[in-house]
């Protein structure tokens, strides 16, 4: 059952919050050993909270839109009193002393947090293999990756261990796993959802967003977490428009742009075919298709890796073994303590990115690399501004391929970086985008369609996604997970 069905069942008392929670915990216990979506399962506090909600419900209290609904939270989002490790050895013992704003908001809406999900260390990766707690497996094929970095959240929703989850997206980290695992996954507009309590990776790109089984559940979660927060200076003070309201309206006459640059020779043939079918389906729903060009698209990955790693080198300077985290034993003097703590605490991809960022910011290279990247970023944003003069939304593939095999891209960092070729532009421009399932590959792997809208137009974005989802009926073709068939 999805978020809405669970909430309704709880409301009419056909099932208690404790029963809902227990059933999901039981499924997590059964499936998680194979999938490894969770770093930590918070069974006892979750059941305690569910019982509390049942008591309040029985006493006649009016409860929020997520009351009794189990939700998983990516392990780079701070949860007071519950470990938040970022998938890193350096934060293995870290217990936050406050809740992230999104956590506070879903708790106020009545959600029951059942666990913290696995991720690439500090959200750096496209496969959830760079985790100190082992890789997450794709529920549709346990020999393949779930995508990353929010692979744990996507796999948890796809395998129905939870009806919904929160993740974070810096260059595609919500949408790519959404595509690989076959679940709707939204990166909201930069500034629309507070980043307070999200452990920083690249602050000008990071954004928290929801995963759900359906687009209407994604819209409900977005409405719950979005809004101004004085604790985040980049949080937008704009009044919030509900995405749930008007979600089911028609998309007749809506202008849909298809940028040719996203259909390069690197694109897998099956992905291309299923995205083209999606374009036809949107047209049959009354959308007007407009083929257009966004000429700076191919510069996105180099720009992204310069901007993101420069911000990484600065943000991750705080892990020095002084205020939190694991301090290395060997520490003769202060500098030696810094070096041994950081060298033994960080994994190799995180260190590689810190090195690249430190290099591009160092004296003599700043103008050629970091400053250049910030200028190209302006050109990429301009591509979006110009496209949105003529169309309401854009559609592209989410990922160039279906889910790849575990280990396949670990030896060559650049190959892994190319997984974000369709998603990183969106973070550089700050616009919102959703991945919705659009078909299956011959090997029964899900494929994703990415829909993009102008800043703060999530209601329109989700309306298109919802219309497509209803017409495509992806979930009807889904069938049981392979690991459940084995009996």
């Amino acid at each position, binding site marked *: 059952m999805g978020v809405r069905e669970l909430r309704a069942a709880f409301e009419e008392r056909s099932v208690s919050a404790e029963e809902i929670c227990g059933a999901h915990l039981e499924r997590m216990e059964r499936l998680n050993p194979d999938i490894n979506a969770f770093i930590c399962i918070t069974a006892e506090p979750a059941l305690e909270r569910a019982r509390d909600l049942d008591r309040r419900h029985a006493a006649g209290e009016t409860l929020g839109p997520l009351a009794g609904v189990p939700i998983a939270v990516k392990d780079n989002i701070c949860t007071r009193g519950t470990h938040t490790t970022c998938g890193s050895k350096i934060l293995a013992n870290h*217990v936050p002393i406050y809740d992230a704003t999104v956590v506070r908001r879903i708790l106020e809406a009545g959600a029951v947090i059942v666990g913290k999900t696995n991720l690439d260390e500090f959200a750096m990766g496209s496969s959830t293999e760079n985790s100190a707690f082992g890789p997450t497996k794709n529920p549709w094929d346990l020999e393949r990756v779930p995508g990353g970095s929010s692979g744990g959240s996507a796999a948890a929703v796809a395998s129905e261990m939870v009806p919904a989850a929160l993740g974070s997206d810096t260059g595609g980290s919500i949408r790519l796993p959404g595509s690989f695992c076959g679940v709707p996954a939204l990166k909201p507009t930069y500034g629309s959802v507070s980043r307070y309590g999200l452990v920083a990776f690249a602050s000008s790109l990071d954004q928290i967003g929801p995963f759900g089984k359906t687009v209407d559940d994604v819209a409900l979660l977005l409405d719950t977490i979005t809004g101004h927060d004085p604790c985040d200076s980049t949080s937008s003070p704009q009044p919030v428009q509900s995405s749930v309201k008007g979600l089911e309206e028609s998309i007749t006459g809506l202008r849909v742009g298809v940028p040719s640059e996203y259909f390069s020779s690197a694109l897998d043939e099956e992905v291309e075919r299923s995205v083209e079918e999606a374009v036809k389906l949107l047209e049959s729903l009354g959308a007007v298709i407009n083929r257009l060009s966004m000429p700076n698209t191919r510069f996105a990955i*180099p720009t992204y890796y310069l901007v993101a790693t420069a911000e990484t080198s600065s943000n991750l300077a705080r892990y020095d073994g002084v205020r939190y985290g694991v301090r290395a034993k060997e520490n003769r003097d202060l*500098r030696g303590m810094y*070096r041994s703590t950081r060298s033994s605490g960080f994994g190799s991809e995180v260190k590689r990115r*810190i*090195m690249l960022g430190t290099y591009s910011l*160092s004296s003599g290279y700043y103008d050629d690399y970091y400053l250049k990247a*910030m200028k190209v970023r302006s050109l990429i944003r301009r591509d979006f501004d110009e496209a949105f003069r003529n169309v309401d939304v854009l559609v592209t593939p989410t990922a160039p391929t279906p889910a790849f095999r575990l280990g396949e891209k670990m030896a060559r960092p650049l190959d892994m970086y190319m997984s974000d070729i369709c998603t990183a532009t969106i973070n550089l421009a700050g616009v919102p985008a959703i991945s919705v399932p659009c078909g299956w590959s011959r090997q029964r792997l899900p494929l994703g369609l990415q829909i993009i809208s102008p800043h703060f137009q999530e209601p329109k974005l989700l309306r298109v996604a919802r219309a497509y989802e209803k017409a495509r009926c992806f979930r009807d073709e889904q069938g049981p997970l392979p690991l459940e068939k084995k009996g």
Partner: protein
Amino acid sequence: MKITLDEVRRIAALAHLDFSNKEYEELASQLSDILDYIEALKELDTSGVNPTSHQTESGEALREDEVRPSLSEAEVLANAPEHGGAHFKVPKVIG
């Protein structure tokens, strides 16, 4: 763009990181590959283009400076690897 072993060592020192000799060599080759790929940006003419460093307009987040409760000393020290009194403890800085 070829990045030398000496340069990799200099960057590692700036970043407070240490590597084995084999790792330094791997990094030199991997960073060189990545920088080669990034060279593609140089063909793009960006003269007259303003850099984008932030997504939002600066200044809109300013507010009155009001005194409010903050975290307690115990909470602030709760995750410290070592502390004493109201302080974070670190290894000796001056010999």
